[in-house]
């Protein structure tokens, strides 16, 4: 399979009080269409990734809303799979190109979160969990905290292992002007910040973010460039308690193995990866479940610097969800943009030398949806 990433566009991530959801989606989309060297009327379909805007504001029907704001009259659909909405929208856009129906489509992920109160956001995000989890008063930090506790009990993972994910991702974000938190933090700062759900402190968690990312995907190969060679989705139980194991995401294993096979590459061929670090434990689980290190060794793998820029396999060079920010519907699209820029050798100070094959890993809920993409030059 070969689908070209023809153009990309990304807004600043952060608390963008002067921008609406439409403003953000438009800005990223117009940038991506211009970068693709296309006119708006050459975009045949629009895939809009968004998780919680309807719940927070009452505004649904985002497919037509976003497409019409761009004066595009082709088909448009809103895709929702919790925080994997962006990755799933890319996957579905690829299917529409592979079917031969379209040649050039736009995927735009956008989320406007900072208008709402923290309690309203916590409740809206829990739509990605189960009824039993909502009744137990669980939150997303708490669900991942349960996985962190289980990992600590089983493998001896420590608080400083967790914190090292946050420190590393802030270091990467310090080189990314689009990041919400483009500055470094110390290990002490992470460990001493207020507890949100034990064992997590505030700095173990990705923030509440406004932002949008867009890509133009194309089946037109008349010019060379970065292309997607593997795209796979896997699902699991929405309820964390119903999983066989609390210390792995089975859907990560299934989706990544399928995507790698589709691309005809091994995990050891990957030179750069954007993985779903919504909480620090999530990046440790991703390292293990994707196969970058052995099960149970993810904490040590990160703390030793193997995933830092200059290490064996630089992970989350954008700053990840933690420090670049996590506008939930946009995240999966942003991951594709970051890896594309790395493969184009356009990532500036955070460029991974010789990056020619990359991976994105986007998770919905506590692991109920996982989308993995492989990109190549």
């Amino acid at each position, binding site marked *: 399979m070969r689908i070209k990433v023809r153009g990309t566009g990304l807004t600043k991530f952060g608390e963008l009080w002067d921008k609406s959801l439409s403003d953000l989606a438009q800005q990223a989309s117009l940038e991506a269409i211009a970068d693709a060297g296309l006119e708006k009327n050459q975009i045949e379909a629009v895939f809009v990734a968004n998780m919680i805007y309807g719940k927070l504001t009452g505004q649904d029907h985002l497919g037509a809303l976003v497409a019409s704001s761009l004066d595009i009259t082709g088909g448009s659909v809103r895709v929702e799979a919790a925080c994997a909405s962006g990755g799933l929208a890319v996957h579905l856009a690829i299917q529409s190109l592979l079917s031969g129906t379209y040649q050039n489509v736009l995927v735009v992920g956008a989320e406007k979160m900072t208008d709402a109160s*923290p*309690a*309203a956001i*916590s*409740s809206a995000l*829990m739509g990605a969990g*189960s009824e*039993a*989890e*909502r*009744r*137990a*008063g*669980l*939150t997303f*930090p*708490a669900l991942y*905290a*349960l996985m962190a*506790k*289980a990992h600590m*009990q089983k493998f001896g993972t420590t608080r400083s292992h967790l914190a090292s994910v946050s420190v590393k991702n802030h270091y990467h974000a310090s080189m990314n002007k689009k990041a919400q938190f483009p500055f470094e933090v110390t290990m002490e700062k992470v460990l001493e910040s*207020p*507890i*949100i*759900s*034990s*064992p997590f402190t505030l700095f173990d968690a990705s923030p509440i973010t406004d932002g949008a990312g867009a890509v133009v995907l194309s089946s037109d190969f008349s010019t060379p460039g970065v292309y997607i060679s593997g795209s796979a989705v896997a699902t699991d139980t929405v*309820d*964390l*308690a*119903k999983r066989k194991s*609390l210390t792995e995401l089975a859907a990560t294993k299934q989706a990544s193995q399928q995507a790698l096979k589709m691309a005809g590459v091994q995990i050891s061929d990957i030179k750069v990866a954007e993985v779903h670090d919504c909480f620090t434990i999530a990046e440790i689980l991703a390292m293990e479940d994707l196969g970058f290190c052995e099960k149970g060794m993810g904490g040590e793998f990160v703390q030793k610097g193997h995933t830092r820029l200059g290490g064996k396999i630089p992970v989350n060079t954008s700053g990840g969800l933690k420090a670049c920010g996590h506008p939930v519907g946009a995240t999966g699209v942003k991951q594709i943009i970051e890896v594309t820029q790395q493969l184009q050798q356009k990532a500036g100070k955070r460029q991974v030398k010789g990056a020619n094959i990359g991976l994105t890993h986007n998770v919905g809920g506590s692991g109920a949806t996982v989308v993995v993409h492989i990109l190549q030059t």
Partner: protein
Amino acid sequence: MSTPASIWRQHKKLHTYLNKAGQLIVWTKIFVAPVGFEHQTPYLVGIVQLEGERLPLQIVDCEEKDLKINQKVKIVIRKIGKAKSEDVIEYGLKVKPL
């Protein structure tokens, strides 16, 4: 969102869990709560292994220091969250240490 009908459906099943015992596999203490639970913070929630199923449940009537891994717990029925004055009051399962 709980509605009177969904609460009624849920309430009909509660008695089948009464007095069941299980083990606490893992827990967390929550300081930032969703809507309807803010007044309870901080509170404990864990994953409980019952015979044949695992459930996410709040842990009540104890301090965190009283808990240990594989702690034996018993199901109790308690009020869930905080109902607005005109809402149906929802009851559900929680556990307390044995």
